[in-house]
């Protein structure tokens, strides 16, 4: 039976620890020894290869664990807190010393991005519906009963927390600038927006240039703090001088990977999943969805330029990566049969077998079948031009009138209202436009 791979890796900026999420669970790993420090689930006794599992420093209460897949995770700058949000819209704040859950809160919608502000007093979340909330970290240790999840749509929108900004699109990521004066948000409709933080109603500018959904954004390291890197479903990584909304570089991943160019918004185009940044070396690790390669880029703040450093080959499709405090790169993959779920590389990208052995031997859990671990596919648009649909329909009708028995009638009329629930895969777009 397969071992569930880790969906997210987040390093603690103040401790030698990385936190890994798998399904609804979390595990914390010491990045110096590789030992698992804490786990929200008892460690499995698997074939141990002669290793002995070190006793866990902390095992949180079972009733504190998440009940759904952790979809996003963030660590506070001082390393004291981890925030997680799960598919059931529950956000939790964890104490990274005791691994107790300090607070639980029901979000209005599923979160796609979480970030702490500098002093860790606020947690910012960007959600599936495009709204961005600035929330006080110290939240009550109860699931707020005010809004049952399924009733949120009926709830009065003026009650409760108000968003500081919103996109009429799915928000895909957010980044606060180092001085916390600005918040940058990205969406499924190719937009990157720069707004004041926390007064998000003041929009400074937009960074426009991507030709497909933007998946991830990060402020680039360096003295200037004026550059942003973005990844998208259009096979590019772009660098922006974000306060000017100006694109300074387009980096083609297809070129870097030696792949031929492809038409815009092709279904299976190279999609950037996420970035990890090594601040000391100014390296950016680019995770590409469903690919067993991680593209390592080097950033020069003075030259305002990214360059290819290396293409790192992994043993399976990459799920998540992050650099720890020492500059080692922790990578998690969807492994082929019998292979490891985690590989660690030093800052020269040589593999460090010892650091990963504990987590590969005792980490995560065995499952009957693996769930779908890739989620950006839903971001790509599947529209068809109504003019093309109309033309195709007219051609079919003409062929039918001309006596072609193979030409099917252009469109079946609906017999009754209920039949609209039956999906009509051949023409979703016109139906949407004219009926909704």
């Amino acid at each position, binding site marked *: 039976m397969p071992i569930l791979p880790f969906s997210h890796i987040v390093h603690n900026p103040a401790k030698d620890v990385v936190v890994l999420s798998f399904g609804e669970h979390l595990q914390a790993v010491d990045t110096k020894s590789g030992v698992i420090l804490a786990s929200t689930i008892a460690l499995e006794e698997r074939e141990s290869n002669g290793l002995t599992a070190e006793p866990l420093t902390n095992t949180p209460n079972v009733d504190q664990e998440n009940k759904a897949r952790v979809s996003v995770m963030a660590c506070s700058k001082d390393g004291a807190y981890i925030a997680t949000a799960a598919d059931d819209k529950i956000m939790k704040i964890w104490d990274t010393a005791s691994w107790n859950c300090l607070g639980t809160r029901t979000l209005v919608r599923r979160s796609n991005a979480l970030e702490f502000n500098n002093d860790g007093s606020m947690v910012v979340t960007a959600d599936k519906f495009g709204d961005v909330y600035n929330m006080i970290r110290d939240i009550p240790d109860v699931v707020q009963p005010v809004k049952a999840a399924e009733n949120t749509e009926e709830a009065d929108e003026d009650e409760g927390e108000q968003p500081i*900004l919103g996109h009429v699109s799915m928000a895909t990521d957010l980044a606060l600038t180092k001085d916390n004066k600005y918040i940058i948000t990205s969406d499924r409709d190719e937009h990157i927006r720069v707004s004041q933080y926390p007064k998000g109603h003041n929009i400074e500018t937009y960074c426009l240039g991507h*030709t497909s959904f933007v998946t991830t954004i990060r402020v680039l390291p360096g003295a200037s703090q004026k550059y942003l890197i973005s990844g998208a479903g259009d096979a590019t990584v772009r660098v922006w001088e974000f306060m000017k909304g100006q694109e300074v570089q387009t980096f083609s991943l297809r070129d870097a990977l030696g792949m031929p160019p492809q038409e815009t918004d092709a279904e299976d185009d190279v999609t950037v999943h996420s970035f990890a940044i090594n601040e000391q070396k100014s390296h950016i690790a680019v995770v590409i969805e469903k690919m067993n390669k991680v593209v390592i880029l080097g950033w020069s703040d003075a030259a305002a330029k990214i360059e290819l450093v290396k293409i790192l080959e992994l043993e399976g499709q990459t799920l998540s990566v992050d650099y720890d405090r020492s500059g080692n790169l922790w990578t998690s993959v969807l492994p082929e049969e019998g292979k490891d779920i985690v590989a660690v590389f030093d800052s020269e990208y040589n593999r460090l077998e010892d650091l990963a052995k504990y987590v590969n031997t005792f980490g995560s859990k065995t499952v009957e079948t693996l769930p779908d671990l890739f989620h950006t596919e839903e971001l790509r648009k599947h529209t068809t031009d109504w003019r093309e649909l109309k033309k195709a329909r007219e051609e079919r009708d003409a062929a039918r009138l001309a006596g072609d028995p193979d030409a099917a009638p252009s469109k079946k009329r609906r017999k009754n209202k209920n039949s609209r629930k039956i999906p009509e895969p051949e023409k979703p777009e016109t139906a949407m436009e004219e009926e909704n």
Partner: protein
Amino acid sequence: MDPVAGEKRHAESPEETTTPESGEIRLPQKKYFRQRAHANVFSDHHLDYPVSPAHMDWSKNFPLHFAPKNGEVAEGAVAKDSGKRIEFADIGCGYGGLLVALSTVFPDTLMLGMEIRVKVEEYVNQKILALRQNHPGSYDNVSILRMNAMKFLPNFFEKHQLSKMFFLFPDPHFKKRKHKARIITSTLLSEYAYVLRPGGIIYTISDVKDLHLWMVKHLDAHPLFVRIPDEELVDDPAVEHVRTATEEGQKVERNKGDKYLACYRRITDED
């Protein structure tokens, strides 16, 4: 409405609109361009929009003010941009009554209507083209685009480009769970404030009191908008057209319904 029936009726229209009659082109007839009054603003419509305002080729919309981006000058088009930029945007312009009225009131101002419904956009487009032919020298400053303004305004307009935005008789979206689809929301107002210059004006009008109160509530609460008192509106030449020029406004008049107007000025955020 059954879309099939709607399209069949529509199919008869094009020839009629181009039939010349005593030298004048007959204006398109609205009855051939009816479309259900609602569109789902959250679904992925197939829309043509530029990557950014700098990428937009306006030459098809305003051939006397913008040269084609590809450098191929079409007949009746200019070879060089006039230097004018669009300043008025009519969001959800419907059958375009306001644009046509304002076109001659502000002959030197470029104005654009945005409408998400395909057939309605076709109608307004044909109407503007016919008006331009019948009245040479006029109506070159108005045009329409099929667009979802809730999503793509920053793709068309630069920061602070617009001086007026119109939201006339918008879809009321009565059901509570549909309120998020309304065109005036707290978060969308921030986007309107981005494309609107300080001092610019948002005009809203509705015959639905609940919607009017909703718009007022959200505009009042927004830090970047302040209501313009009614007495100041008397001198604004746009206001009477906001009340009377749209098809929707005329319908309300025929039915002797009420119209609720609320206009707001875009201010800057003082700390």
